[in-house]
């Protein structure tokens, strides 16, 4: 029975952390989907969200979970500003220039934070940090449960926005076919600003949500960036639903792999699955499985 309990606990942990991985990655896939740009500074935007949440929650004495929407809105403004200044000029530039620009942006954000906030590890203390819920003999750390709940809520809201609102539909149209969308009177410039703003809003909000269970320091972005890219690519570049499913998958793989492998190799299976999935989905099998991948291939 003990083994089954372990596996169940591990899968449960995997789903919890997986839903958070989905939340922090969905913004990246949205930006790629609409603008066809891979944002290498997405990890640093997460860090900025965490710092924002830290200072806001210590200033107002509020729990980061409550002020997460506020941080999200601030993130939207930051994203829109960055899009207007740095991203918009390079929207048509070769992929190589896009990589430099977003990498440069990441370096500025991380070292700017270090210069302003210093290098200490900051974390908030919340009443539920030590608490756990238990269900069918498994126990779940409260911080993760709340984060996962938030992720589910955000996923639903985002789905509603994209499918139901006019703006959301216009954004999906731009993602599917920029030229056609333009013919229908959708102004791509405004779309890009909103898409990048929303992408950054989502990740800064996620930063506020995950703050209770971790700490923030200027260079923490690097720890999350590889997981984010894994989730986004596994889910299919540009597919929101794909990113959510992939987030859960990555969380479970990572969690299960600590059962079977030494913790040092925890991320090895994740990256190997990432590599294989990439090659299969959009590579050699393309001609045979074309219709399955049509949704994923943007060009």
């Amino acid at each position: 029975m003990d083994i089954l309990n372990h596996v169940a606990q591990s899968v449960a942990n995997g789903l919890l952390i997986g839903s958070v991985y989905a939340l922090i990655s969905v913004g990246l896939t949205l930006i790629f989907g609409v603008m066809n740009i891979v944002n290498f500074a997405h990890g640093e935007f997460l860090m900025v969200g965490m710092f924002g949440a830290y200072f806001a929650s210590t200033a107002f004495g509020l729990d980061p979970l409550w002020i997460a929407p506020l941080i999200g809105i601030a993130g939207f403004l930051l994203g829109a500003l960055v899009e207007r200044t740095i991203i918009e000029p390079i929207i048509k530039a070769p992929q190589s220039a896009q990589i430099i620009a977003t990498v440069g942006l990441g370096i500025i954000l991380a070292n700017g934070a270090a210069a302003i906030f210093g290098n200490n590890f900051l974390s908030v203390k919340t009443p539920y940090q030590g608490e756990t819920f238990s269900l069918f003999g498994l126990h779940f750390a409260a911080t993760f449960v709340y984060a996962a709940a938030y992720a589910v809520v955000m996923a639903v809201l985002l789905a509603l926005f994209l499918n139901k609102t006019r703006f959301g539909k216009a954004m999906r149209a731009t993602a599917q076919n920029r030229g056609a969308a333009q013919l229908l009177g959708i102004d791509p410039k405004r779309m890009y600003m909103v898409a990048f703003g929303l992408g950054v809003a989502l990740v800064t909000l996620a930063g506020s949500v995950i703050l209770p269970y971790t700490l923030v320091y200027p260079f923490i972005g690097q720890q999350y960036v590889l997981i984010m890219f894994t989730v986004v690519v596994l889910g299919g570049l540009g597919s929101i639903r794909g990113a959510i499913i992939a987030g859960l998958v990555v969380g479970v793989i990572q969690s299960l792999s600590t059962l079977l492998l030494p913790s040092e190799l925890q991320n090895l299976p994740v990256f190997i699955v990432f590599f294989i999935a990439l090659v299969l989905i959009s590579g050699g099998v393309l001609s045979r499985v074309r219709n399955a991948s049509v949704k994923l291939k943007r060009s």
Partner: protein
Amino acid sequence: MFNDALTTSKQHSARRVAWRVAAVGTALALTLTGCSSGGGDNSSGNGSKNVKVDEVRLGTILPLTGSTAQNGNNSLHGIELAVEQINAAGGIKSMGGAKIKLSTADATSDAAKAASAATQFLSKGEPPLAIVGAYASGLTITVARVTERAKVPLLSTGFADELTHQGYKYFFQLPPASSLMGAAQFNYAIDIAKDAGKSIDKVAIVYANNAYGESQAKALKAQADKAGKTVVLNEGYSPNITDAGPIVSKIVASKPDAIYSIAYVPDSVLLMRALKAQGSDVPIFGGTGGYITPDFVKALGDQVNDVFSITTSNPDGYGDIGAAYLKKYGEFMPQEAHDNAAAVYVFAQALEEHPTTDSTDLAKYLHEGKFDQGAAASMPGGFVDFDETGVNVNAKPVMVQWQNKSLIGVWPADIVKGKPVWPGQ
């Protein structure tokens, strides 16, 4: 003269062996620029007794950006504070009140940058007499290679074992090596348990798999095997984990009597929170790093109480430099800040007792002297004494414990004031 160079290089095109071109280049160098000092070798200074200078130069290389930026900056604060205190108290009196002039370089947590910074110090007009630094072992190793060649003493507060086995003559390590730290972390825990009438038979060793974690964990494992204890878990993990849940469930499942953990700040806090979340009350023995930092207690509050940790110097013995640090930086003096400050005091005292502007001469004296001024006095045993391999023979690890949110030295009894409190008693 320039044409010759051009014609030479035309015949010697790239295909010729580089060495021939080097020879030509160097020959030209001598003729073109007369006899320049060349290279970083600065044995041209003199070592006589009564040396009057207006300043002595000290270099420091630390990771001020990147993943270990916090420890780098704490170390820098310790060094700056010591230099400030020494200069305020009149500098090096035996050298006419010479002030210490500190120059710093950011190694950006990159081994190559650390070596470049060391070379930059040593090739500028007036190279420093000594260098303090590099905190992380990877950085210290590459810096030591440069300072060893340039015959400039490197005062290090890292624990890496390898540096003291290389037969270096210009490398000085104040804290005990990680093998000593690992052994003490294990043995002191057994003694403290026995002292409280408890026994430790099953141990869990969990460590961040970076250079510091790996070398100290190896020593812990060796000591546990030697003591015949059963190691129920010996698990490394990547230092930048985002969730300690899985690792802690492995620890809880192995039902140890004691947990030995070697971690930096982020992973130590994550481990503590996950241990609490999974209801573990097993005593924890940290291996310095995250366990003895101000951020640890800021993040966890009362949960830190009863947690033990090995460290290189007794915090409640930091005396006035500890108080000065608290006043200047608003948090208690972390171990790496204190040990780096001690290194500066050793440097100053060595010059005070043996004034020289020649780094080779300084290195010789550092091997001979005994240094007990300022922060060096609060190193274990009250003074720092380097043997010929550069190891501080007096360095003896100290076990500290968080008692109502402050670090108290609790073991071994002969060099500490506090008493250990067994968790849950």
